[in-house]
């Protein structure tokens, strides 16, 4: 009567989730191993180099440092995902915010801690402002946020270039500097470990904690998640869908605004088209997917990506193109979403089967 049960059938849901993520990462490493092999490189040597260099003290600190923008960007994307919104515009939002915040910080003078706090608040406000355009277009004109944020990414770049070239570039050196004016020491965030790990890492951890608190532990978060899961049902129970869209998008943009702040207030003390790192908006999508929008998952996934990134310089020295690190990251995301899809289908079937079995035997959970 009872169907055949294997070990996996008895595992609790979180363990299955964890296992499936592990399987996805291993699968990705295998696929990239084949790629390395086909292109005439030794995959085992490459992976050994990654592990040996990555697990030294300095590299672990670098991993933490590199995980800072990824955690922030992933939280920004994840808050959208929880509301069933796809914010592809984190890239445009954080770059715009970085320019505005850097310019703001260089123009004001304030006591040390306050200076930084004000800068971060301006960065969040600028990110939220840019995200609000997409939110407004969605609720007033029904434009899908995927398309509008893609377009806004490009518009953001050109608006920034215009602002930077005409108004915000520091030309006190006769045009040699290609950044904004340097932020005064009171607005700079000190390192935790000198030259290795910046204080912004703690800020990022705090933001992830807030993400958890807001989305998973507040009344607002409950409404947000129920709108994301089933907007019709949520609306029926009195949750205003449009309001949730606006608030989720604003929160997402506000977090996105902080993504480049480690660079702006912790490293370069200015914004510059070359100095400020790009691409974190898209990397954040990858990290959020790998971390399954869960705060702990995001932190772990960001550290994994940071770990891989930290080894890329050494990899290049040992004769393996360092772009393989980025290829591994992209393949990880593909395998993770595929495995996620398969797992959730399996879990649904398992729940259905177990419910059916329980109903037949009159013993729930047998």
């Amino acid at each position: 009567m009872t169907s055949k049960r294997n070990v996996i059938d008895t595992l609790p849901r979180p363990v299955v989730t964890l296992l499936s993520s592990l399987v996805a990462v291993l699968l990705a490493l295998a696929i990239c191993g084949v790629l390395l092999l086909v292109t005439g490189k030794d995959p085992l040597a490459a992976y050994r180099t990654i592990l040996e260099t990555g697990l030294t003290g300095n590299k672990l600190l670098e991993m933490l440092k590199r995980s800072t923008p990824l955690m922030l960007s992933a939280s920004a994307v994840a808050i959208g995902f929880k509301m069933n919104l796809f914010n592809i515009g984190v890239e445009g939002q954080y770059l715009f915010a970085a320019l505005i915040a850097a310019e703001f910080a260089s123009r004001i003078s304030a006591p040390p801690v306050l200076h930084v706090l004000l800068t971060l608040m301006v960065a969040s406000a600028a990110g939220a402002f840019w995200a609000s355009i997409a939110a407004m277009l969605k609720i007033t004109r029904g434009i899908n946020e995927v398309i509008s944020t893609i377009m806004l990414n490009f518009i953001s770049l050109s608006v920034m270039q215009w602002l930077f070239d005409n108004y915000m570039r520091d030309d006190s050196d006769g045009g040699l500097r290609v950044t904004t004016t340097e932020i005064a020491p009171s607005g700079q965030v000190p390192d935790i470990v000198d030259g290795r790990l910046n204080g912004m890492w703690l800020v990022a951890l705090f933001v992830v904690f807030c993400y958890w608190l807001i989305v998973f532990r507040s009344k607002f978060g409950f409404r947000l998640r129920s709108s994301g899961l089933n907007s019709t049902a949520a609306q029926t129970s009195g949750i205003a869908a449009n309001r949730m869209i606006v608030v989720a998008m604003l929160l997402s943009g506000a977090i996105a605004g902080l993504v480049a702040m480690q660079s702006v207030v912790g490293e370069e003390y200015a914004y510059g088209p070359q100095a400020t790192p790009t691409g974190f908006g898209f990397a954040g999508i990858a990290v959020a997917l790998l971390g399954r929008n869960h705060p702990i998952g995001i932190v772990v996934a960001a550290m994994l990506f940071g770990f891989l990134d930290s080894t890329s310089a050494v990899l290049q020295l040992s004769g393996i193109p360092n772009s393989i690190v980025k290829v591994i990251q992209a393949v990880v995301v593909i395998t993770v979403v595929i495995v996620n899809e398969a797992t959730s289908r399996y879990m649904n079937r398992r729940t259905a089967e177990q419910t059916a079995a329980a109903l037949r035997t009159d013993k729930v959970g047998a």
Partner: protein
Amino acid sequence: MKLTGRARLLVFFAVPVALMSIVRLWSGEDALTSSDTIGASLRLSVPILLAGMAGLWAERCGVLNIGIEGMMIFGTWFGGWGAWQFGPWVGLMFAVVGGMLGGLIHAVATVRFNVDQIISGVVLNLLAFFGVRYMSDLAFVGQPGGGVSQSPPQTSAIPRFDIPVLSGGEVFGWKSPNILLNLEERGWFFVSDLAGILHGLTHNLSWGTVIGVAAVPATFWILWRTRIGLRLRSSGESPVAAETLGVNVIRLRYLGLLVSGGLAGYAGGILSIVASSYYRQGQTAGRGYIGLATMIFGNWRPVGVLGGASLFGYAEGVKLVANDAISTLFLFVALAAVLLVVAAVVNRNTTRGIVTAFVAVIAAYTYLAIDDVPESLTQSLPYFATLVVLATASQRLRPPAMAGIPYRRGESH
């Protein structure tokens, strides 16, 4: 005011040309309708056009394609590599194959494994960007003129030609007269502008461009005039109904995405083989996304995509050939808007009248007040235009009904 179809077509074509002619005579700026500008516009339109077609094929079969940019990147790399190794024609074939590889990855993820279509597209863009960097490192580093971000230059190019009689092409060694160029140089009202536009479209044509433009009638014919096209569109409109009638939705979606990838790859090949003579990192410069915009702009129809791609290509062409002439475009917009105001008054459409009058005033003010428009802002024109179209005309846009919604065989109850 009702016009017959043919008269309306005439108005749609003749009135803008006449307006441009007026603008040219008024401002003394020849560049708007010169054959140089139009030729450059054509070359710049084709990659956007093909990217738009790639989007159209994917969405018509029911799969969103955010990954056009990535497929184009594969196209530029494989095209650049193939053309460097084996010559330009083989290079174009490699570009198509490279793009199809991207399409296949997207198809396996979304059609086979039902991964979210937007996520798959985004990841494909990342994979393509870094994947070709990895391959460049292996294939191009250490070669003369090559490096991690570019390929060695190609030694031969796709042949170019002029159309005989109209634009002075050769027929069996006989140099035919160049009628259009002759007319263009006269500077007559309307006639010379029309001749300039036609001359730009008929001389110094690359075969690669011609094949690219042929994708429009080919797409229209296949998707709207053949059996397989009807089935493909039906799997984007209503896969459940299609399957009930015995259509293999899964197979058609694979097919649609392979064609989509091939077109995007060809668009990339044009960039690395026809528009330049080597592969360079970042060569696509967001054209995949402009293609996506063009598809929306063109209401998921081939002729609409052609219109959108021409518009965006023209804006780029004017910027490239005659950046100074950009401000005269505002004069053109102002005049066009005045005409629309007149039309709105005749039709007693108050809202449209007010909106177009507003546009006319803004454009006229911009023309008179601003000498040169910052290039950094004109770059975002296509993206801005797309948002405006979506915001104002979204009621009239009709995307395929089921594009973006995963489909599993036999799960329709």
